[in-house]
Structure formats: structure tokens, C-alpha cells
């Protein structure tokens, strides 16, 4: 008898060969099915409850994928591309997953028929390359130097991004706000300079954009209410110092010989604090913000001198205040000069819903802004925040890179037509592969129709016909259950979103196709991997 050779640890799962590719593809299909219905303006939301009972309601592909907690190694690739699309462009996370799934689905018959994976991969790569080239060719570039036109372009892109979200009825309102917000930033368009705060209550339309910084009133000590709550062009001191009566050194211990010294130590401690406070007062600062607590003594001291203070300001808010108002965050009050103090035109504390907010407006360096979201429920606002995030990302991208294409499935149909035309000129297996990719691209308009409850075959046929006649921007018209020129209807998307989605999807496809063996180590701490439900195994 031949001795058995044990190569791998017991419980290790190893599978290989063509069947492995197929099974990976199946797993990916299952994932795609999760997000399929969220695509487009008639897409639905998902409610996900985590084990701790925290619920999330979302329409954002990346958010859903993140929360699904996928463990299958191949399927995880899809989660990763959704995440990378989110990080790179912020929108189109659902479409990238659907595209990848559809590419795989179209490639499955080739794998089954024995085409070598490397050939398939080469075909997919080539098709993607052609498609990206084509997008760049046909993308429309509105003139950037025209302020008005640029604004319109940005607003339309934002509106398209928000079309599928919960807030699509208010998309005009929000797209204006998002564009305003992005326009306020400086050239680098740093995302963290747009603060988003949520206050329950109020209608969505009450959401407001503050051209400056706003943050929630911090915990305050007695005496706070006696401080003035409004200033015009105050000087602002930003600190990283604790203004409280405290031990200067934590581990120090003082040994006192006699009673007189006792009083001296007490006085010394007070003097330290009062010195700090006096310096702040003398510097002319009217508003004092600190990352660390401002104690009751300091609060009352400031109240006495008509100054405003807020302690325990969250760091990012403090940083944004610094960016907006100038000045710098100080760790000592030793040399307070005007150059390190910030300023703004107007400061006030204002009631918004149930909370009070500190609002700084008219900042000299206004490279920052704050959006205060209002809405009925916690989850509603969270979803609004995610949607606004997507829109902001899109506007940022579009501003940097201004080429646009028509959305609503139009660009996919055009790409599909283009690839099909090209494929006919190629001899060899690649012809089949490229035309398969062309077929796969049609999934986006088809899914849009399916989600909206339309007859997808009918509409797709119409679209194919229109595109064959050379109507480049014909896409699905969700409102009228028909096809329409989406360039005219202002359903625009930055071409970058599409390019990125296409390349990410094809990368993922290639990756999954090139894997032919999985070795999975047994989970440590648990017994051998579960063998599934008894009786559920099919006979070999």
C-alpha cells in the first residue's frame, strides 16, 4: 500500500482547478445579488442590524458591503473594489460591484468550455483598455473658465449622484449646497475641511450650510450663561491648555514644614492659573477655545471680563476653526501676539433644534464650511450624511477633472456598442471575449429598468436601436419609462467615475479568474471546519 503523505494540517480546505474558479464566480454572484436592487433612482435601501442591535439603513454600495461582513475569500475582492471606488471617487460603488459580477457571469461559460484563464484575462484587459480610451474620446468637456457653466456642471453631477438616495426629492436644494460647500474650499479640496453635523428634528430643507465653522456647545461650568454670546470681529485664542486649578505635576508631593508655607503653596497654585487667565485677557482675545477642559474658575473669570470660552472642543473642530479663522493652536500662553490669534467677522451661539451651536462666520481665510443636517430620525440623517459625502466627492472630482458623460445607462450602452463593433474586426478568441464584455456592460441599464419596475428587454432593445443609429447619449428615462437623451436631461456623471469603475471591475474579474487554488487553514480554536448540514451533501 502506498503510504499516505500528509502535506497540510488536518482540517485545511484545499480546492483547485477549473471548478474552483467556477465556485468563486458563484460566490461573487451571490454578493452582487445583495446590492443589485440598490442601483439607480428607483433603487431600494437595505436595513442591516448588527449583532449589537445597531441598525443601518443605506443605499450606498460600499456601506452595505462593509456591513455584510463577507468571509469568502473571492467574494471579499468585490468588497474591496467597492471600498476602493468609495475612497477614490466616492460614488458608483454599487455599479462597480454589479459590473464586476456581470463580467464574471459572462466569463463563466468560457471557463466551463475550457478557455484558458490567461486568455480570458487578456481579453478582459483589452476590452477595458478600449473602453477607457473610448470614454476619454467621447467625454464632453465644458469650458472650465466660465464660472457659471462650471457651476452648472457641478450641480448636475451632484444631482445625479444624489438621485438614487433617500434625499432625491430635495436634490436641487442639496446639490446647490454641496457645490457651495466645495467651492469654498481651497485648491487642494481637502475633504476634512467640510464638517458635517447632525441635529435631530426639523425638515431636510432646514439643513443649512455655514460658511465657517459651527460646533455643538461644549459642556460648560457655572458662570457660562453669564458670558456674552455674540461678538463682532472678536479675536479668538485657540488653546491646548487646561485652564483649571490643578496640580502642576501629577506625581509631585510637597512636604511642608510649617503652617505659613501652606498658604504660600495655595497662593502659588492660584497665581499660576491667574497668570494664564490674565495673559489671555490682556491679549485682547474675546473667544477662548480649548481642546482641554476649561474649569469653573476660568469660566467665571472670563464671564467677569465679558469673554466667551468653550472647553473640550473636539480636536477636528478646533483644527477647522484654526483653518478658518487663522491663528494657531497654542500650548502655552507665554507669548500671545496678534499673529497667533484668529479672528472672524461674527461669532454667536445659536439654538438649532434641541442643541446650541457655536457659529463662526465671515472668517478671513474661509477655506472651510460646515453642513448642519436636520432630519426626522437618526438613521435618516446618517443616510443623508452618506449621500452628501458621495455628492461632495463627486463634485470634488468633477472640479479637478471636468469631463462628463451621460448617466442613466447611456455611456454603458455606447461602450457596449463600441466594443461590439471593434470585436468584429478581431480574429481569434478575443472576438468572443470582447463581445461578451460588451454584453456585460448592458447590465447597468437593465438593472436600472428592473429596479424601476420597467420592462427591461423592451427598453434595452430601444436603446440598442437608438445607439446603432448614432444617438450617443440615449439612456433610460426613469421618470417616463422610456429612453431619452440623458445629456440633454442633465443626468451627468464625471467620466472619471466610469473609468475608475470599469478598471476596478475588470481588475477584480481578472484577479478572480486567475485564482485556481484556495488553501484555507482551519480556524484556530475551533474544531475542523463545518462540513455543512448533514444530508445536504450531494453524492459524488
Amino acid at each position, binding site marked *: 500500500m502506498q503510504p499516505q503523505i500528509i502535506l497540510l494540517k488536518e482540517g485545511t480546505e484545499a*480546492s483547485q482547478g477549473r471548478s474552483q474558479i467556477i465556485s468563486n464566480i458563484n460566490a461573487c454572484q451571490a454578493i452582487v445579488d445583495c446590492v443589485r436592487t440598490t442601483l439607480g433612482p428607483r433603487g431600494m435601501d437595505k436595513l442591516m442590524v448588527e449583532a449589537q442591535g445597531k441598525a443601518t439603513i443605506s443605499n450606498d454600495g460600499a456601506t452595505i458591503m462593509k456591513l455584510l461582513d463577507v468571509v469568502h475569500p473571492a467574494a471579499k475582492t468585490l468588497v474591496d473594489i467597492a471600498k476602493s471606488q468609495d475612497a477614490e471617487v466616492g460614488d458608483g460603488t454599487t455599479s462597480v460591484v454589479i459590473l464586476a459580477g456581470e463580467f464574471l457571469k459572462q466569463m463563466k461559460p468560457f471557463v466551463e468550455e475550457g478557455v484558458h484563464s490567461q486568455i480570458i484575462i487578456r481579453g478582459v484587459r483589452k476590452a477595458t483598455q478600449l473602453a477607457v480610451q473610448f470614454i476619454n474620446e467621447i467625454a464632453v468637456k465644458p469650458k472650465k473658465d466660465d464660472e457659471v457653466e462650471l457651476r452648472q456642471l457641478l450641480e448636475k453631477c451632484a444631482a445625479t449622484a444624489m438621485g438614487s438616495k433617500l434625499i432625491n426629492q430635495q436634490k436641487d436644494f442639496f446639490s446647490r449646497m454641496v457645490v457651495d460647500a466645495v467651492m469654498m474650499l481651497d485648491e487642494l479640496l481637502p475633504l476634512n475641511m467640510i464638517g458635517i453635523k447632525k441635529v435631530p428634528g426639523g425638515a431636510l430643507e432646514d439643513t443649512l450650510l455655514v460658511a465657517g465653522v459651527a460646533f455643538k456647545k461644549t459642556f460648560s461650568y457655572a458662570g457660562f450663561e453669564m458670558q456674552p454670546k455674540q461678538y463682532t470681529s472678536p479675536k479668538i485664542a485657540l488653546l491646548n491648555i487646561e485652564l483649571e486649578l490643578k496640580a502642576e505635576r501629577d506625581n509631585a508631593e510637597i512636604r511642608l514644614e510649617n503652617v505659613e508655607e501652606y498658604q504660600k503653596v495655595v497662593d502659588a497654585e492660584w497665581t499660576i492659573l491667574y497668570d494664564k487667565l490674565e495673559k489671555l485677557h490682556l491679549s485682547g482675545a474675546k473667544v477662548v477655545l480649548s481642546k482641554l477642559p476649561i474649569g469653573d474658575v476660568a469660566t467665571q473669570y472670563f464671564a*467677569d471680563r465679558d469673554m466667551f470660552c468653550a472647553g473640550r472642543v473636539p480636536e477636528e473642530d478646533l483644527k477647522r476653526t484654526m483653518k478658518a479663522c487663522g491663528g494657531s493652536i497654542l500650548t502655552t500662553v507665554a507669548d500671545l501676539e496678534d499673529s497667533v490669534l484668529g479672528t472672524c467677522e461674527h461669532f454667536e451661539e445659536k439654538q438649532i433644534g434641541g442643541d446650541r451651536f457655536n457659529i463662526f462666520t465671515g472668517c478671513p481665510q474661509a477655506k472651510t464650511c460646515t453642513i448642519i443636517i436636520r432630519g426626522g430620525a437618526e438613521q435618516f440623517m446618517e443616510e443623508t450624511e452618506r449621500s452628501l459625502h458621495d455628492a461632495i466627492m463627486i463634485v470634488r472630482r468633477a472640479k479637478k477633472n471636468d469631463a462628463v458623460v451621460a448617466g442613466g445607462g447611456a455611456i454603458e450602452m455606447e461602450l457596449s456598442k463600441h466594443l461590439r463593433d471593434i470585436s468584429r474586426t478581431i480574429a481569434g478568441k478575443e472576438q468572443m471575449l470582447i463581445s461578451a464584455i460588451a454584453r456585460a456592460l448592458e447590465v447597468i441599464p437593465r438593472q436600472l429598468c428592473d429596479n424601476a419596475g420597467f420592462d427591461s428587454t423592451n427598453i434595452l432593445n430601444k436603446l440598442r436601436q437608438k445607439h446603432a443609429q448614432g444617438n450617443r447619449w440615449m439612456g433610460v428615462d426613469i421618470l417616463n419609462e422610456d429612453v431619452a437623451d440623458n445629456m440633454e436631461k442633465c443626468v451627468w456623471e464625471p467620466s472619471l467615475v466610469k473609468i475608475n469603475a470599469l478598471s476596478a471591475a475588470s481588475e477584480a474579474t481578472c484577479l478572480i479568474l486567475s485564482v485556481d487554488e484556495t488553501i484555507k487553514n482551519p480556524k484556530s480554536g475551533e474544531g475542523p471546519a463545518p462540513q455543512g448540514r448533514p444530508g445536504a451533501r450531494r453524492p459524488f
Partner: protein
Amino acid sequence: MASMGALAFDEYGRPFIIIKDQDRQKRLTGNAAIKSHILAARTVASTLRTSLGPKGLDKLMVSADGDITITNDGATILKMMDVDHQIAKLLVQLSQSQDDEIGDGTTGVVVLAGALLEKAEHLLDKGVHPIRIADGFEMAARCAIQSLERSAETFPLDVNNLEPLIQTAMTTLGSKIINKCHRHMAEIAVNAVLAVADMETRDVNFELIKVETKVGGQLEDTMLVKGVIVDKDFSHPQMPKVLRNVKIAILTCPFEPPKPKTKHKLDVTSVEDYKNLRKYEHEKFEEMVQQVKDSGAGLAICQWGFDDEANHMLLQRELPAVRWVGGPEIELIAIATGGRIVPRFEELTPDKLGYAGVVKELCFGTTKDRMLVIEECTNSKAVTIFIRGGNKMIVEEAKRSIHDALCVVRNLVRDNRIVYGGGAPEISCAIAVAKEADAIKTLEQYPFRAFADALESIPLALAENSGLNPIHTLTEIKSRQVAENNPALGIDCLCKGTADMKEQHVIETLHSKKQQILLATQVVKMILKIDDVRSPDDGY
């Protein structure tokens, strides 16, 4: 292909896992998910339905600790119900955010949301796409709000004529348990808000209104103190019970020898030293009392305590004092008396003292409870509402009711447009929306009509709770509204003989009604958009 939530199998029949713990997750998709949500939400709404209106009934809730709450306030009921279902939680948040923003109408908003969902269910059965229902609802809500704004009237906000304000507050209080002394409470609420309102910026800072409660006495004994009530008494029983024209020192430092914050150790090596220490402490007391006396203060209010020795000394030096007064109270006292909070004895100067006309101790019945009332202060911007009542539950409910009334008056100060209550605005909106519906070409016509029907559920519930024949009453009022073109006709809940709410002085703020409709529509849209629920299986 394997669907999610079940195990997927590869071609050898081996199961593979895509999502972590997927066999332990529950998944609900499509219309089944929406239906189950609607059912959950309607259950919540139907709990509240009977609490609506002046003849609405109360709910008694026993918490896990055995605390009993009896209330009629929608937000409170839902908060106490401790719901677990995700969708029901959304409704709780809905009423909560109405509470935060408006403070009133928390029951109405949930009932409306429930009714909208009920109508949506019928439409779903007809096969209308949920998003189209949601879109239709949103359009209808906009239409309803326009109609509301058309019928709104400007409210005569006049500081010299409080009658209309009192009438409005009475509407709010009408449904509460305390309507026994309806008018009395309304007057208190109006006076309290006007005392602290800033008429120029139309802002009301609620932190200046304090609500104190004490079990005992009758509801009629509830009073408004233009000053501050502190649940404390003089530190020594022999101190005078009433002080007139007194200057107040407000101290946040303890009456004891100051201690350094740094860790310290005093070596007492001889009897001499010990005596010195005692002497030092004694001198310190004397000095402090003297400093207070020197400043001219007749009363010391301390945030911290002092020991009996100090107490005795204060009595000897005839300086009444109050100890252990909490931070917020200290602040209110400072604002009311115009004094400054003094953190150190050394800083005490005559101009930092507050002034009060009367400071007296209140005794209650046979109990030994005492409270301190500070009245006739220099600044009347801080007021206290002092609620009395037969038992704890009544007092608590009275507190909530007063809060509602305060909110309503505040909203009027902010925005003085009003509509008439008693279901009148809902009926007029329903008529307007139904009329608009016929002009719509698309499918949204159905949701539009459904919205109109749902609006009518509020007057229906009102009539039902008042013991009237709901359908009969509603149809009568509706026909009269159309015939007389008078949007002020509502349900005559109190059987006063007239349906004209203008005559009955049943007034609600426009802002509150708008919020109700907007928030309810928002949440309904959110619920309708969810088609996939994923939750741990051990849940509901």
C-alpha cells in the same frame, strides 16, 4: 444559484460560506420586508392613537425598576415603551425629533406616519412600486404645506395683550391631565416665556426657565416665581427665615482653609505645631467671614459645603448662608440677582454682589421640607415654575405638560404664523391634496389620494377619542369646509356647539404642523425604501 442567507454549494456539494455567520442571520426581502415594517409601525401608531386630542386617554407605564409613569405625551410614551423593533425605533426617533424641535404634536406625527403607511400598504397590494409611492407622498406633502401656508394667519404677538398667547397654550394643555387648572397653567407658561424671551432676536433661552417640582398641595398652588427657587435651606436653623433687600455673595469656593491641589503632606512634629495649625485654620475662617462681611453681603450662597464649626461661626457673625447649591442653580441665581460668581474670597468686592428684594424660606405643610425662594431680583430674566400636585405622577405629568406649553409659546415668539387646531388644518390640506391629485397625469395620482386619506386620520382619531361618530363628523366638517371655504372648521371635541376653531380659540403653530407633515413623510419614505433586512436571527 444559491440565495443569500442560505448556504451555497460548490459543484462537489461542499458548502461554502460567504458571509460570516450567515446561517445565523435572518433575511427578509422585497415586499415581505416592507409589509412587515408597515405592520410594526402601525402597531406603534395604534398605541398612540387613543392619546390624541383633548379627550385622549393616558397611558400608564411601569418601567423595569417599578417606576410608574402616567402620561399623554407621545414622545414620552414611546420613550418608555422601550421598543426593540428597528422600524418601530424609527417612529420613536420621529416623535423624539418632533419633541426636540417643536415640543408639541408628538402624538400627531406618529399617528400620521402610521396612517400613511397603512395607505401605502393598499397601494403596494395594487402593485405600485414603493418608491413611486414614496415620491408621490413627498409631492403631496409639499402640496399640503403650500395649502397650510395659504390658510395660515399671522398671530398678534403683543407683549401687552397676552390673551391670544394664553389661548394657544391652553390648546396644548387641553389634552393633558392638568386641564383642571387649564388657564392658570397657560398663564404661567406664557408669562415665563415672555419673561426670558429676547424679542429682538426672537430667541428664547430655555436654560433660564427652571421647572421645580414638589409633591404636596394642589395643582392650583403651582406658581411662577420671577426669581429662583432652590431646594435648600439656610445652613443653620437659627438663621432668619426671611431676608429683605439683601446683597448676595455667590461663592464657588468652600468655607474652609484652602488646600493645594498638588499632593501634599504637612508634618506635625510637635504640640506647638499642632496648635499653630488649629490657630491657622481658625484664623482662616474668621478672615473669610470677615471678607464676606466687609464686602457688604447679607447672604452667602456657596456651591460647596462647610463644616459645623464654620456654620456656627457664620451664625455668630450673623451672616446667613446656604450650602451645597448646585452649579446650574448658582448660575441662575447669579443671572437673576445680577451678581458675579466669585471663585475666591480675595476677589470678593461690593460690585460683584447680587441683589434680591426678598429671600425667604418656604415651608410645606407638616413636612419639614423647606425651599429657598429668591425674588424681586435686579434682573428678572431668570424665572422658575414651581409645580405642586397631589402625587408624584401628577407632578411629573404636569411638568411635561408645562414643557409642551412653554415650547408652543416659544415657537410663537419665533414664528408667529398660526393655523387653527382641532383637525381643521388636516381636513383643509386633505381637500387641497385631493383636488390636486386629479390634475396629475402619472401614477403618483394614487399616492396623492392616499395621502389625502391619511391626513384625514387625524380628525378621525380626534372625533373617535371624543366619543363622536367619526365618519359622520368628519364628512360633515369636510363638506362645510368646502361649502363655506373656511379652513378653520374642525372637530368640536369639547362639544362647545361650534365647529369654528377660531371661535373656540383652538390654535396651533404653523411651524409645528409643517414639521409634523414633513417629518412623517420623511420617515414613511425611509421605511418604504427598505427592501432587504438582515439581522441576527435571535432578534424579534
